[in-house]
Every structure is written in C-alpha cells, then in structure tokens.
C-alpha cells in the first residue's frame, strides 16, 4: 500500500503533505495573536476545546504573509507534533492521492524556503509533487538560521 498524500496549495504552489500526519482540515476561527512569538506563528486558535498553534506557511517559507484577519475563511491542515497541535495555513486543500514513488531528491534549484521544507519529489497521478516536511515547516525560518 502506497502512502497517501494530501495535495494542498501553499503560496500558489501545489505541494503534498503526508496524509497520515494530517488529522483534519479546518476553517480557522478567531485568531489570538501571540506577542513576541516567531513571525511565522500566526497565533492561537481553538478547535473543539483544544488549543491550536497556527503556523502561517507563507511566512515559514518566507514567501510573503497569509492574510488572516480579513474575515474570509482560511483553511488549515491540523497536524500533531510532539503532543502539540498545529494548524498549517494553506491556500486551498485539493485532494488525496496515492504516492506512486518514494520521495526522490530534487536536483533543480528551489527557492530558499522550499529547499528547507523539502523531503523530495514524489510521483503521483497528478504529476510530480514536492513532499513537505511538516516539522521543518513548523520550525520556520528562525531555527534554520540558528542551525546554520
């Protein structure tokens, strides 16, 4: 059985998230900002009496910012990492597909942000997609800078 992937688009690009890691897809309600938190932490939101830490994927990828407070509905993928729940903001959630290959390294040059969160390229029926490393996108650019 091949791994299932959730196709989402972030900052205009179609990418894949490992579907097993995604608990649910939600529309974010009111956001409570976290002052002094890293810039890619958009704030906190409540989901069924749980606190979600909302990660702005555009900011995490250093590809601009997601507009979160204009009243429009914002879709997000809920994932769990080390016991904490995160909501990853995405432009749109498309579909679930089967991976047709193991992730393979991408040898072409990617943008900085994408390079950091890439787990490689997977083949799907929809064509090749970038597989996103969820811990890396949650960690955001700041950790990368420290590690370097």
């Amino acid at each position, binding site marked *: 059985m091949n791994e299932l992937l959730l196709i989402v688009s972030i900052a205009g690009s179609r990418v894949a998230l490992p579907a097993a890691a995604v608990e649910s897809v939600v529309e974010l309600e009111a956001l409570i900002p976290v002052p002094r938190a890293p810039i890619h932490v958009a704030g906190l939101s409540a989901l069924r*009496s749980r606190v979600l*830490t909302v990660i702005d994927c555009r900011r995490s990828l250093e590809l601009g910012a997601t507009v979160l407070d204009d009243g429009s509905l914002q879709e997000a993928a809920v994932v769990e990492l080390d016991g904490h729940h995160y909501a990853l903001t995405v432009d749109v959630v498309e579909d679930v597909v089967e991976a047709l290959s193991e992730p393979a390294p991408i040898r072409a040059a990617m943008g900085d942000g994408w390079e950091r969160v890439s787990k490689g390229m997977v083949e799907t029926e929809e064509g090749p997609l970038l597989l996103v490393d969820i811990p890396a996108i949650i960690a955001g650019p700041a950790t990368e800078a420290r590690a370097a």
Partner: protein
Amino acid sequence: MDDLIADFVAECREMLEALGGEIVAWEANPDDRARLDSIFRFVHTVKGNCGFFDFPRLETLSHAAEDALADCRAGRRHPDGALVSAVLAVIDRIGEMIASIDAGDGVPEGDDSALIDALAPGAEGPAQQVAMPAAVDAASKASSTPRTIRLSVELLDRVMSGVSDMVLARNELARRLREAPDDVAVDGAFERLSGIIAEMRDAITRTRMQRIENLFVALPRMVRDLCTELGKQVLVDIDGGDVELDREMIEMIRDPLTHIIRNAVDHGIETPAERLKAGKREIGLLSVSARQSGNQILIEIADDGKGIEASKLVEKAVANGVIEREVASRLSRSEQLALIFEAGVSTAKEVTAISGRGVGMDVVRSNVERIGGLVELDSTPGKGTRMVLRVPLTLTIIPALTVSIGSQHFAIPRSAIEEIVRANGGSVTLERIGGAGVATIRGRRVPEVALADVLGLPSAMNDQERTLIVLRPAGGDVYALAVDRIHDHEELVVKPAAPAVMATGLYAGTTLADDGSPILLFDPAGLAQVGGVRLETLERGGHTADVPVAVNSNEIPVLLFRGLDGARRALRLGVVDRIEEVAADAIRPSAGRLRVQLGEAILPLAGVERPDELDGKVRVFRLNDGTHEIGYAFREVIDLMSIERDVIPADVPGAINGVTLIGGEPAELVDAHWLFAEHLGTAARPQTQLVCRLPEGDAWMQNMLRPIVEAAGYLVIGDGDELSADLTIVSHGEPVQSAQSGRVLRLATDPDQVNGQDSIYRYDRTGLLLAIKSASGGNR
C-alpha cells in the same frame, strides 16, 4: 509464570515500602512484638515464594533472616543493634534482588555470606558497611511505585486530560446556550450534565492524588542512616501522612524535602554531647508534618537543634559578595534568615558528605517555587529551626487573574501576584528614570514595565490610566507590571504551549477561557526578563524612599454606603475602624440612648431611625476617633470612592454634613464629628485601657513594680507583645526595645544615677507614683 512473578515483585515492593518505618520503630523498641512480627512476616513471605519460583539465592538470604527473627520471637535471643543492622542489610539486599527481577534480569550473581554471618549471635561490624550503599538505593527505588492501585499512569493522565477537555467543551456549550433563546428543559438538562462533569473532574483529580505518606515512609529510614553515619541521635515524628497531594507534586517535592531533612540532621541537630551541654535531651527531635490549608498543602519540618545564627549568615553573604555590607545592616531578622536561600550562602563550616553536595537551599527554594510553592523559614538560635513548604494541590489547575492589553486577554498566575494598585492612586507615583519606568508604591520603589511595551502591542492607554500589578516571580524580586485592564479570577486548566511559543520565554502555557477562546498564561519571571527588569539585584528593603504621602485635598477616600433608610451616604474612610455584623437583639435602648453590643464593648449606636423595625442581622460600622468608638448601622456598602466635587453644606447642623456628587450621583456626607459629639456626650469613658511595658526578664520589675503599676490602672505587657504602650519602664542604662514605647521612664538602682525628668530612683515611691499617674493623665 511471568504474571506470577510480576505479582510477587509487586507484593514484595509494597511490603518493603510499608516496612521502611517499621524497622526503625523496631530498632527504637526491640521488644515491640508487633513490629517484629511484621518484619518476620515479610522475610517469611519472601522465603515461601522463592522456593516456588526457584530463586535459591533469595531463598537462602530470607531463610537466614527468618531464622534469626524466629529466635527473637521465641525469646531465645534479644534483638540488639547489631542484629537490627544485619536484618536491615538483608532486607536491602532483598530489595535490590527484587528490583533486578522486576527489570527482567533475574537474580544477579553474588555472595551473601557476609550478610548471613552478620545475622549470627555475637557477630558484628561488617554488615554495616555492606548495608549503607544499598540502603539509599533501595529506599528510592521502593518508594517510586504507587502503593495500592496498579494502573497505568499514562491511562490516568489520558482520562484526566479527557475530563479537562470535557470541562472546556461544557464551558463552550454554556456560552452557546446563553446566546440561544431560553429553553427551560434544555437548561435543566445542561445543569445536570454540568454538575456531573464537575463531580467527575473532582473525582478524577482525586485519583491522581496520593497520600503524602508515600513520601514520608522513607524518612525514618533515611534519618536513621544519617544518624548512624554522623553519630547523632534523632527521633523522627511524622504526622499528617494521610494528606493527599497530586502525584506529580509529590515527585516534585521529594528532593527539596529530602534536602531539608538532611540539612536538619546534619547541621541543625547537635551531637548528643553538645546537646547535653546545652541542657537538652540527648536525642534530637525532628518533626515532619503535613496538613491541608485551602488549596495548599503545608509541610512543616521542625528540629530542636542549634538553629541558624542570622548574623553568621549575613557575614557569610557579605563575604561572598551576595549583598553589600551597607544593605546588610538594614535587613530585618527574617530578611537575614532568608539569605540562606541565596546562592553561595551556607552556614556549615565545612562541607560534609551528607548535605554539602553543592546543592544549597537556593536550589530547594527555586525547585519549590517552580511548582508554585513557597518556603518559609524561622529559626531561634539554640532552640531550633522550622521550615514550612507551601505547595499547591495540583499542577494542572492554576488560579489566575485575567488582564488585557487593548482587546487581547492574558492570564497571570495568582501565586506570583503580590498586590494590585491603580497607577493614578494617591499612594503611587510613576517616574521615568533614563527611560526606565520606576513606580513608587507607598514609598517603595519598584521597577515598572508596561505590558504593552513588552509585548509590542498597541495600546491607547497612557501610563497613568493603567493598573499596576506587583509581581514577585519565583526566586526573584518584585516588579510592577502595568496592564490596561483587570478582569477576573479564573481557575485555568493550563497546558504547555507549542515550543515556538514557549521559546519566547514569556509564557508558561495556554488555556481556554470560559468563552472558548485561547488565553496565554504569562511566566512572571520571563516577562521581567524580556521587559529588561533585573531580578537578581534584589531590593531588600534597601531602596525605600521617604516620600511623604501627598495630601491631596481633592481626593478624600470615602466609603459609599446605603443607610438603613435607603439613602446614599458617605463616610470618610479614616473614621471607619471596621465593619461588624450583629444580631438585631444586640441593639437595644439602654441608659437613655440606643446602644449596640459588639463583642465585649457596648457602644452608642447612630444611623437607626426606628429601632423597633430591626430584625435579623444588622451591619454596623465601628467608628473610631482615636479614643472613643461609636457604632453606625447601615444596610450595605456600595463602594470605596473619593469625593470628586465640592461639598454643598447642609442648612441645619445634624448628622449630615452636606451633599456632594460621588460616582456621578448625589450622596449625603455623614458628619463624623457631630456623631461623636452627639452620642458620646460628656460622660465618655476611654474604651482603651492604658498600657505599660515592663521588661519580662527583670524580677524586680515583675515582682515589686508590677503591682504598683497595675494598681494605677495599667495593663502590663512584656517586651515581645505587639501592643503599643503608653508608658515603658526600663532599668537605667537599658535600651528601649520597642518603637511603640510611649513615654519612657528609667529607674535607677542608685539615687546618684538619677538625671533628667524621666529618670527616677526606684525606691522613690512618691516620685514613681507621680510619674506613673502623670503618664496616664497626659493620655486622657
């Protein structure tokens, strides 16, 4: 088979734990048959099971111990110290083996002949050394397992967090129901559900509770081993083992408690010889007790050892550069003692193997404060030391205060809050010194940070409109945090926040408020750090500034209340002593006017128009003009306000002075002077008795002088009493101890010493009586 072994291990562990205290009790009283029996039962059980499981080494060992104990039981042998130590060593070895079986390693290889030989009559020595290293090890292993329920702790935590979620879901439902149109049936059902959930939360919280006994059972053994090592004799008195505490909390206080007890035995209690010389019993007493007080647990550790000499602490602290000598000289006694909690201060002359492990009382304090607790210390040189650990019942539910900046809410743990003051209040001034905020609160200067600045949030409020929260973070000193608004006290179920959020250092966790929105809980120490407040530069009473409290005539604090007749009235706060509630039958007309009985005193009562209409409880202000008291009956207190506008004077003199606007509405201002003048009349008698302070230790004063002073109408108190005295009598040349001494009279033993007006020869009876009388006369 594996199941049977697991049961055997669990059973042995339970018995081992229970045995910890028994053995020591047995040693103290070897003839105690009940203790002997229970120890015998343990080795017997082990022996029986070993045969079944084929653990020959364990069997030989327990068999040898059983034989020795059986001899004691049969009276063939008297249990002496050597035998007790040998049995202890055997039990420790059994504990080790059981731990090893539990870990799946089976019984390790080894030689027990030394232990078995030590059990023989007349044997001595070697068993002791064998026992010691094993002892601590076994004790710590044994006590880390729960006692009665075998339940996966993980499962328990999951249930707990499920219930917490349920509480939050209920809160959200409650909010939705409030918004929806009323439906009695739904409300009723919800109420019931709500009640059940609350009950369940209580119950599940209790399942996480453990008796603090788990922590205490290991103590007698630990103290016994320490004593053997140090050549001291200590009797441990344990009380309150049935107090229950959160399982996690027990683990958190295990180390601090152990450390304090080690300290007490090592540095506190003296050797038997020293104790005898000091006139104490040879055996030191160490009492450890626990009790619950509200949602806190108090654990008290008291010893009757040599106590802590505050002056030595100060010297050490100065020598180690912890504080400046100049600051040190101004410290109060309790502040001096508190120095023991500073890093780098220890009174022990030499570092010993027991407590000098580089872990000081500073670590104890910070560990306790990290879990929201407090350590208090009191010590009398020569008499002993008493420490109290105050810890909250649970870790997960934190009482907090919600505040806001702009539109965003935050929570601050209650335990760190010292007081809350308004920035524009009369006793508070805010200043900027080199850009840094300094708040002066009743003469005390504390660093001030605006929460809006720390967080980088926009706030329309200026500094003067804000409210200051005086915070004392764990292990640090106070600072004031300016917030826009204060909301509510809430009990919050706090969960750790995501690492990226925790990394800011500002927050201790997140939670959901009753309205279902997430709230961040602040870490007060982190806030200070980010806000640039240096917590390590301790403000120890040093920086108090003598700022005269500004007397602003525009701001007279008044108590706004509703009188019995329903009128809005105000009384100047200064004359209100306190509020009391009395039964209506305590108010009755007597000796020509209405009077109220308040405790021992009978006071004239004002504010009542129709005494016959009183019933039930009546609330009464106790007004005080310094010497006399009267009562003033009222219906309810509205608020504490200040007079904003001019007072329009009343046309006729009477109980009402005038009318003014308070809180936007007119209120009558009660004329306190008129009340006193009217109700006291001329026949007033002082309610307060004159007080004279005499030195306690002076036999002459107590035996010869005291009757004369008492005959003159004084209440005689000693040096330690808190009352302020009208007259203080001391011997010539002695200093006056208390600040509240009133008039001071010095008595000379020799007529030639007499100098000045307040100095009298002590057998100059006429002069003495005159002086005593005149002191009282001046006060009337």
